[in-house]
């Protein structure tokens, strides 16, 4: 008889727990069945009247019912919690296609980009990076580079003169001289920077442009070493094997002097409009440092010699990025600059 009502109580409570539709209904079912004053508690409160044997048997029966109900309750509760979490998270829906707030990253000037790349490259080859003034004396810009006054080579570089006799450097080569004076031999240096020539501006000419001067002074520096550095440098810049050639070129601060050409990267040397059908593109002047230049900077040319080169950063940037109008570089137009 008591067995019967316990079983009936268990199955009724179980059904109520399992059919609860809300957390509140579930809680009410738990209180009614398992609470301190719930149905099971009431049954067990009457157990004192039973014989000891019967008491232990019914006790086991009650315990089993309690465990069954508790585990059903826990399962149902977890189910409700999961559903609640799912609902809350679903309400937190975000449109990730919306743009992120805040400024976009800015852009480095294309010359800065090329220049940095080269600086890192040369530093890794043991070169130091030097700076020199943009306003120079005639001595550093010309005389110390074996271009005395009244030398026709001065015509090669139309010069901006400043009131008072100084000038705007026509190349970054004066930094060679300053570097030799300051650091002495052995020396490996580059000097990237702004240079100026007094010429009218059009799509391919600028009065303000950027160069990277390079120099190595050591014992027994040869044309073969110069070729090695140029080839290494250009292969790194263009990220592929480049073929270079030297041909005679005249620059008073080097002897012998060269023009260095690279085989056209567009057509591979077969001839195209970029290389004017020649298969080669003139890239940089270079040479072995003229002993007069070494001597003027206090270096004994019998003991030391070196090479020097002048890389046109402006030209390199234009080649690298396919820029067809040099005026963009100083134009300050964000529609241009934001492409880099």
């Amino acid at each position: 008889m008591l067995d019967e009502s316990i079983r009936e109580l268990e199955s009724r409570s179980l059904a109520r727990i399992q059919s609860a539709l809300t957390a509140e209904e579930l809680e009410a079912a738990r209180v009614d069945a398992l609470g301190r004053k719930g149905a099971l508690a009431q049954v067990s409160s009457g157990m004192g009247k039973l014989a000891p044997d019967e008491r232990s048997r019914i006790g086991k029966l009650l315990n089993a019912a309690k465990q069954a109900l508790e585990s059903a309750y826990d399962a149902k509760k977890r189910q409700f919690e999961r559903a609640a979490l799912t609902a809350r998270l679903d309400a937190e829906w975000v449109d990730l296609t919306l743009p992120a707030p805040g400024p976009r990253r800015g852009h480095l000037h294309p010359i800065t980009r090329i220049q940095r790349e080269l600086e890192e490259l040369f530093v890794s080859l043991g070169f130091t990076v030097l700076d020199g003034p943009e306003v120079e004396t005639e001595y550093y810009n010309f005389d110390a580079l074996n271009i005395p006054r009244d030398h026709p080579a001065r015509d090669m570089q139309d010069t901006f003169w400043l009131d008072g006799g100084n000038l705007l450097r026509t190349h970054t080569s004066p930094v060679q001289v300053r570097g030799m004076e300051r650091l002495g031999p052995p020396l490996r240096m580059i000097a990237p920077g702004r240079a100026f020539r007094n010429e009218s501006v059009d799509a391919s000419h600028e009065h303000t442009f950027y160069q990277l001067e390079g120099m190595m002074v050591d014992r027994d520096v040869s044309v073969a070493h110069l070729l090695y550095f140029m080839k290494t440098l250009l292969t790194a810049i263009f990220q592929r094997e480049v073929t270079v050639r030297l041909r005679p070129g005249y620059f008073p601060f080097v002897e012998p002097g060269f023009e260095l050409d690279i085989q056209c990267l567009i057509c591979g040397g077969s001839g195209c409009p970029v290389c004017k059908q020649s298969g080669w593109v003139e890239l940089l002047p270079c040479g072995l440092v003229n002993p007069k230049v070494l001597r003027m900077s206090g270096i004994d040319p019998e003991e030391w010699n070196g090479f020097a080169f002048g890389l046109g950063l402006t030209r390199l940037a234009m080649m690298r990025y396919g820029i067809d109008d040099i005026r963009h570089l100083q134009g300050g137009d964000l529609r241009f600059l934001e492409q880099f």
Partner: protein
Amino acid sequence: MKFSYNWIRELVEGLEYAPGTLEKLITMKTAECEGIEAAGTDSIIEIDNKSITHRPDLWGHHGMAREVAAILGCKLRDPANLALLPTGPAAIKIQIEDLELCPRYSALVFENITVQPSPLWLQHRLTSIGLNPINNIVDMTNFIMAELAQPMHAFDAGLIRGDTIFIRPAKPGELFRALNDEQYRLEPANLVIADSAGAIALAGVIGGGDSAIGEKTTRVILESANFQASSIRKTSSALKLRTDASMRFEKAQDPANTVRGLARAIELLREISPGIRLVGGVADQKKEMPLPPSIELPLEWLERKLGRAIAASEVRQILERLEFGVAELKPGVFRVTVPSWRATKDVAIKDDLVEEVGRMVGYDSITPTAPLVAASVPPGNPARKFQHEVRNIFIDQGFTEVYNYSFISEASARAFGFDPEAHVRVSNPIASDQELMRASLLPGIWKNITENARHRESFRLFEIGVEIGGRPGGLPYETPHLAAALFDRYGDGTGGLFEVKRTAECLMPGAMAKPAAARSFEHPARAADVLWKGETVGRLFELHPSLVESGRAAVLDLDLQLIRKLSAGDVKYTPIRRYPSSAFDLSVIGGLREHAGDLEARVARFAGPLLESVQFLRQYSGPPLAEGEKSVSFRLTVGSPERTLSSEEIGEIRARIIEGMRELGYELRL
């Protein structure tokens, strides 16, 4: 300089190469060819003048033919036959005042001349290389110049007064009418050719109009001279008069060449002016000609310079083909004698011979080789590294880098209230709006703002560049600066100012803005000095709205040299505090235009040494505060490295602040 292929072929025996092939050989071995052009049966090879600046001999076809002959191993024909030169007393006297300025002056007199158009072959030859035929006499001089690189000049002897040609400096203010019909006022720095009455030619530059060859000329004095290169160059650039003659003389021509020119003239004149007669011998005054210089060339040294081995016999052959004299001084050492046409300034030291040998063996025969040098860490360049870091910060905060010119106009200097006279001035500006060196990056940035505002509603940009400032008697100052701008078409501009300020703090943590009187181009109520570590390092302001009509522009101008100096120093670790800190909030009531930064500084001062930090929370104005008042709230964090502060201690600090501020006249909302 234009070269006729046919002309070169006449001088190089057995030249079989086509013009295109020849052009490539010349480019690789001698000088840069700029192009090649067909001209009837001839081809014209254009050589870049810059690449033969050092080669006086290459300003004539014979010189180029010598190169070609040397490259190919062919025989060179010499068009000048010195045996034709007449001997005996000359028909004219020559008086050179300064043999340094005119190392040699040679002349010949001809009579029974018929001035007439040149034969067609001569006219054609001149036209093909860009020279205008005039008459047979003038054409002959131009032909020889183009062949032997020796400029010559013919005077009408009938128009020359006296029997002596003087080579002397011009008298101060001496007037000279040139062949181009221009009148020049000369200075003693200009060398002239004169007769007894006055200047008849500007030495090495241009002939005179008064003694020019005309139809009536029957007697000619033919000048073939040599002048000091720098003197010719000075005169030519001072008078802005560049001629085919001056261009050659300024390259330092060979004094031995003068009589070769005369010999060639005799031969040509007989052909183009039949019946011509020589009068007397060659008049020739000259400085004593120096011995041909000789250079010791150690072959092992030559190999080390080139970076490849080369046989002694090959070195000898190359130099001899170029007409250098070669003798073996001792085993492995040559004594090389320089021919006169290479000795004026081109070849003087053994390094010059490296070039001769190198270009002829071909630089492509040298294998690129890594040098064996000691590995070393190159000295750093902290200034440049710092600038790269600054760039990174500004890029990260959304600013795009611009490059502006170093030149500004007087007008834009004035627009910023800068004194144009305080700028370094360009003596020969390319345009009148580029005459001053920028003493500030701001005019350039202003231009960037107005131009980009046409296309964009908002943008951020910056430039790093040097400000150039005058310094008497030396190079000007060049101070690296950064100028950054944030433009917005909409809004009241405050957002931009604080964004720029925040970016400044990315570069300089703890930097402060100290409001200061506005300059003419700054918004009168929005300008401040930027302070960092106690120094004024720059300026934060809004551009005066009258300068930016389409929106608002916040600007930052920083002295990077100073900031780099203040940035120096390494990080020093301090232990993390072991005892908890405590925080409390305070609100100070002050005037509406009272600076929150000042209030914060005062609160912090009263808080004393246990203050860890003070943080601005918010400010408020409106009821219940009185009109013209605002309340500024701060959160103060206090603590001690040695213990946890008791609530009494914290209370004392708070009371001290309240009392101190009250004494200064500030109420606090508690």
